[in-house]
């Protein structure tokens, strides 16, 4: 599991110093403590080089950062914020480019977290100060930590292999099957490691020579250096980003879920399992939600005064909004929109307003017309009031520019009160100044820590078995409404497709053959009837037609074989 990060060439080896302190410290803490002193001579050389490199930072960068700080300071009254929201974090912490990690870091962290169950789990940080205090040349030690990572590149094998091995031992009882499978792909394994290490080594020795004359100079005091490192980090942000994304190779293990001997859960069992699992910190979460609920009347007031409300923060806000709805909106007309619903459109939102709220029968040429109609009606009739609750206004379907524009215009009508929730980290990017001013948002942080049950239930989750149950149910549903003959036709096609299921290049059944078979089974009497039937199938997306290279039309059912088998079995039962 040992692997150096993608260090290649001279430039990239410099990157190494961004390996986090704690990472390095941990190694020191583990078993490298003594080695530190031993390697001192070599170290001091690298320190110098390191320092030299830092001197190169242009003043411009520093200046820029300074200005940025000013800006943050100007805006950030947050320093004195005692409030209960998490706004006291500086932006750099949230958005900064994180330090490069080795691929086995996750396992390491997991073992770390697992090993210290009782106490807090920040061994790196808690150890850090002690460590520094103990060491006589603490200032130097700090420097060295960054530098060590360079050296560790060479010794990686001895160092790094320890933790993951431990983890692996602890993770599972020896399971030959799993063990053998958990090897890494050849594309990113040993040989390359060695190659890289060699490269790093040469780079190191190359750069040592020019740096030597300077070796006499004293290292700068610790804190200024630390500051500089920080500055440099900021300055190189952009570069690092592109560097990190330039190589297409990704170093991850090749294990797959299939080989885990683990059946995939389907939606239903998943749901049941989660229902039975106790919710952690239920009391605290309830307390948190009660705090938010006390704001309901304030929201109502602010809605009435022309503001609209948007809720953000971790956790599903659905229950909160539902509670708001049931407790305060019972006596008024309101519209609930599930933004996370996969086939929601602005059109359907507008339709439900015009058809159900305004009782208008008729269609509109475009959403803009519809919006105009709504605007007019609301202007004419001053007794109309409408509360709109949108769960996840940032959902896939609604986040488009046009949708947001229409929603924004809708929300700017004086007697339409909008209260919405957002979850996506980049949700605020959907709104430009114009839309923001139309929305007239008031932001409320409502971190609930509730699980996103509803919101994720529609999702084609990565780990959930693609049961195809929806497809199956829709198949039977549609077919039940057809004539007996039509069902027969479809059966015929399905059977044929299943017979050929071992042939991966099966193009489908050609129309002529199919017609022949249907005739023989007394299902159709002319190819026109068959065509009409096929059109109906196609309209319901039951079949797909493809024209082959020879111009012949091929028919195919776009459903996977297992579903099709299930379907036929079910049909047989029915008959």
């Amino acid at each position, binding site marked *: 599991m040992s692997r150096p990060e993608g260090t290649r060439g001279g430039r990239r080896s410099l990157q190494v110093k961004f390996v986090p302190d704690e990472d390095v410290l941990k190694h020191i803490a583990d078993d490298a403590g003594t080695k530190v002193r031993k390697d001192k001579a070599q170290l001091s050389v690298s320190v110098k080089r390191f320092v030299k490199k830092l001197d190169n930072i242009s003043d411009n960068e520093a200046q820029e950062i300074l200005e940025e700080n000013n800006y943050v300071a100007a805006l950030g009254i947050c320093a004195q914020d005692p409030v209960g929201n998490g706004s006291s974090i500086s932006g750099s912490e949230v958005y900064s480019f994180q330090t490069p990690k080795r691929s086995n870091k*996750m396992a390491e962290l997991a073992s770390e977290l697992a090993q210290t*169950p009782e106490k807090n789990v920040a061994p790196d940080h808690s150890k850090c100060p002690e460590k520094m205090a103990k060491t006589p040349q603490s200032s130097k030690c700090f420097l060295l930590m960054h530098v060590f990572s360079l050296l560790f590149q060479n010794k990686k094998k001895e160092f790094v292999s320890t933790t993951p091995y431990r983890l692996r031992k602890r993770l599972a009882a020896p399971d030959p099957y799993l063990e053998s499978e958990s090897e890494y792909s050849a594309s990113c394994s040993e040989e390359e490691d060695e190659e890289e290490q060699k490269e790093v080594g040469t780079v190191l020795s190359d750069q040592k020579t020019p740096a030597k004359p300077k070796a006499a100079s004293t290292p700068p005091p610790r804190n200024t250096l630390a500051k500089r490192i920080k500055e440099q980090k900021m300055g190189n942000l952009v570069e690092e980003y592109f560097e990190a994304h330039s190589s297409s190779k990704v170093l991850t293990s090749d294990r797959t879920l299939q080989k885990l001997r683990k059946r995939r859960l389907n939606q239903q069992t998943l749901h049941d399992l989660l229902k039975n699992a106790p919710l952690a*910190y239920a009391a605290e979460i309830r307390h948190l939600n009660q705090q938010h609920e006390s704001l309901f009347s304030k929201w109502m007031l602010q809605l009435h005064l022309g503001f609209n409300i948007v809720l953000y923060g*971790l956790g599903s806000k659905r229950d909160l909004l539902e509670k708001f709805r049931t407790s305060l909106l019972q006596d008024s007309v309101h519209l609930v929109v599930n933004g996370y619903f996969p086939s929601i459109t602005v059109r359907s939102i507008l339709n439900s307003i015009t058809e159900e709220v305004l009782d208008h029968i008729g269609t509109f040429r475009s959403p803009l017309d519809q919006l105009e109609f709504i605007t007019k009606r609301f202007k004419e009739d001053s007794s109309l009031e409408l509360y709109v609750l949108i769960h996840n206004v940032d959902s896939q379907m609604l986040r488009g520019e046009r949708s947001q524009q229409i929603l924004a215009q809708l929300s700017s009508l004086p007697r339409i009160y909008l209260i919405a929730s957002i979850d996506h980290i980049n949700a*605020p990017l959907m709104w430009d100044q114009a839309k923001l001013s139309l929305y007239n948002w008031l932001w409320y942080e409502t971190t609930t820590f509730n699980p996103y049950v509803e919101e994720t239930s529609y999702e084609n989750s990565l780990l959930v078995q693609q049961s195809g149950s929806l497809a199956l149910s829709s198949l039977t549903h549609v077919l039940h409404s057809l004539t007996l003959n039509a069902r027969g036709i479809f059966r015929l096609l399905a059977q044929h497709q299943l017979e050929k299921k071992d042939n991966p290049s099966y193009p489908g059944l050609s129309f002529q053959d199919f017609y022949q078979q249907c005739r023989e089974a007394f299902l159709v009497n002319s190819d026109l009837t068959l065509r009409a039937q096929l059109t109906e199938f196609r309209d319901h997306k039951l079949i797909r037609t493809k024209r082959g290279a020879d111009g012949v039309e091929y028919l195919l059912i776009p459903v996977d074989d297992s579903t099709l088998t299930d379907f036929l079995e079910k049909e047989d039962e029915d008959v």
Partner: protein
Amino acid sequence: MTTCSVSKGCFVFKPSTKKRRLSEKTANFRSPNHDSEDTELRFVTCQSLWSQIKSETEQIQEDLNKQLIDNLMSFLSRSHPDFQEKTTEWTCGMKFREIPTAALVLGVNVTDHDLTFRGLSDVLQDNITPYVALLDAKDCPGIKNLMQKLMGQLMNCDIEVDSLEDEDCVQVSQNRIRCSMPSLISWYESVTKKTDSETPSKKRNSSSRHWQTPPVVVIFKDMESFTTKVLQDFIVISSQHIHEIPLVLIFGIATSPMIIHRLLPHSVSSLLCIELFQSLSCKEHLSTIIDKLILTSRFPFKLGEKVLRVLINIFLYHDFSVQNFIKGFQLCILEHFYSEPLSVLCCHQGDAKKRVYSLSHDQCENIRKLPSFRRYVEKQESGKQIELLTNDSFLKEETEKLLEDLHVYHENYVLILRCLHVFTSSLPKYPLGKQIRELHCACLENQVWETEEYESSLQLARMLNKTDLVTMLQQCVEILMSSSGKEFDKTVEKLKELLTQFQNLEVAEASQERDVSISSQKELQKKTDLYHLQKTLLELKESRRSKKLTKFEMLRFEVVDYIDRLVRKYLVPADNRTLHEIVYFNAATVLRGHLNAAPRTALHTALNNPHWYLKNQALKCDGGGISNKAPDICIVYKLHLECGRLINLVDWLEAFSTVVMAAEEPNGDAASSDEVDDTIHARFIRAVSELELLGFIKPSKQKTDHVARLTWGGC
């Protein structure tokens, strides 16, 4: 009635009973735990104050735009002079090809433009022409849509003006007729002819405002967003018909007039006869607003220093939008009246007096709880202290007095602030800020005379020359004279006296100078050698060093000292005043949270430090670490941070189950099961799909069973 469904995303709920509650806004104002705190009255006060302020801001906006609109009006009246006479001579035809166009440079604060345009079109419709069409870029993706929109608007306004009887006829025709320039022209002709043919007596009153053949004004609200093609086509087409219909274009421009030439090639822009109009910059607008709303004692409600800073920073760093500033101001008023029970006293003086005496006992207790009032009580002698803390009616009397003091303080504060600003705004490098709002913030923040900037300003003021000083003093006198109170009569007198001293000084100096010049001339007439010259120069230098200050300098010191004394007396920060909580809104963090929120930061905190929200000891841990008992999503998030661009789900799952199992059975042997428990598996699935919903990861096809990270980090 649930809102969960697999087939539907929208749910409409209508109350069964038809009765609607409309005027129950006050009900929401009542917070559940306080009842006897004059909520109703507070709400009414809040509403009336806001409506006052709103109308005030609208008035300001109108006044500021007046100049611009006047210019535009005169431009419009000039634009089609020949059309009036219906000259269709060939010679004019050439000139008519050019469409008169006004380019309106409005600045980057796009959100404010709407108001300007609305005002503009109202004025135009009242005074010049009923035919005004406002076009938005988003409504006009093609020339066809543009024409449709244009004709729709024009014909609608036609209906409004003429109040046609056969309304539906027009309605139908609007949809039916082909939207083209000829149809527009025929419409225009029919409309103008109708006006002509109608009896003058009937039409007199309405058409007197407009001309016989009013121009058709087309306003492009956001010119930058229009597609080049649409604009070009429209201009070319309409230039063909300009001699048949008096068209005037108005371009709303947010960037710079150069954009016209960038959008339109020369062949098209040569068809336009462009005149440039510049609206007032948003910064000046803001200054006026601050001047009229905040630096005045007209409104009882005041903004605290931090709040004001937040609002100004949002304006300067985010949007330059005056509308948003006003919105923030509205929110401040709302928050203040909602959260502060004593804000019921935040009204005009006369009302406040009455209200003080009708305060309930609870409210009196609230007054006693105010920190500023406590400080005040501590300073009193013991007898009065007891009275204040126990006797409600005594407290009310005292409160009334204190409120009056506060009011007087405000009046004086504003005047002296303006005087000080007269001085500081002309100093080099503006140590206390160029704008009066900066000075105001500085004064509110702490005692301004203790700041370095103030010190250096005084230093610089001591070096002002006489003419500047005199004009400044005159300005100060004017400012102080403008107040109605008698408080500053003495100050004015003093300043006037200083002014006359300066005048006298002038006379005296003039004579003195004459003396000096004569004497020096005399000296110069003498023959002099180098040695003597050096000597005299040295003497001169000596004498200058030791010489006591001239009269002017003395006077200057006196002026500066006097101003300094005024500042120390009147520009005391509001925090030091008793009962300032009643009128000052200081919850800057609340305001910032609502207006300038940081959703991502909140997510970050929740994921990295759940203890912040869930106050459970098990979650508490210092440093950047996280407890293994944290909610699932936090653990999964923390683990994913350690990964690169792609994450292997199997590894992730295993790591997760290691952590979770260790947390659940700390002493149990982890090796007891090699299989991941189903429940843990399910929890993992849920956490991962939650992360996907939040946008941290997405499914990836690059490798089987991998997800891609969407946030920065790793490599």
